[in-house]
């Protein structure tokens, strides 16, 4: 499809395990954004990429979180040594360039830490 694609759609894992979440942005979109949405809360900005560069990583909750992007395509968000408070929906969005609005969102990955 032509939209933002995220995988897996659901992930259940044990506390302490590492997880990797994937985002395929809309083709041609150079900017990519990661957000976290905890139950009943709004979206929390984590990190954005312009191309494969991430100028601002200050939104990442801890050093267990990291993100990479290959060129201007796929991005992965990795959470190491998962904790129960990491349980949330992780949403990815993309736009033509950074700052361009609106952002187009994927369906998210629902992460549950047991």
């Amino acid at each position: 499809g032509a939209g933002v694609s995220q995988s897996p759609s659901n992930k259940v894992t044990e506390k302490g395990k590492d997880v990797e979440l994937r985002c395929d942005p809309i083709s041609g979109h150079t900017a990519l954004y990661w957000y976290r949405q905890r139950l009943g809360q709004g979206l929390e900005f984590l990190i954005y990429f312009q191309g494969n560069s991430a100028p601002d990583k200050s939104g990442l909750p801890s050093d267990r979180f990291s993100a990479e992007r290959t060129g201007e395509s796929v991005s992965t968000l990795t959470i190491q040594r998962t904790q129960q408070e990491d349980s949330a929906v992780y949403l990815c969005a993309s736009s033509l360039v950074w700052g361009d609005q609106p952002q187009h969102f994927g369906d998210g990955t629902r992460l549950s830490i047991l």
Partner: protein
Amino acid sequence: EDKVVQSPLSLVVHEGDTVTLNCSYEVTNFRSLLWYKQEKKAPTFLFMLTSSGIEKKSGRLSSILDKKELFSILNITATQTGDSAIYLCAVGDNNDMRFGAGTRLTVKP
């Protein structure tokens, strides 16, 4: 500290009612305010507002921004059950977008 506050957090109405959702914000560098509708998964874009006093309208939905008082409202007239969703307000500054907690709207038949 930058913040976006939406009210009410939850609202239950009956079909045909008119609702007004509120979003107030405090950000260091304002660029735009956006409204999204989130039903089951991905938020879908509704409106982007950058200038005060200019109403954006799409069908039964409309929105307006007041940059002096730092708030926006989203109006939905003649509500339908399909309007049931979480409505998110996001404010973009020069660095990122900040989202409010959302208003959960439930429209009963």
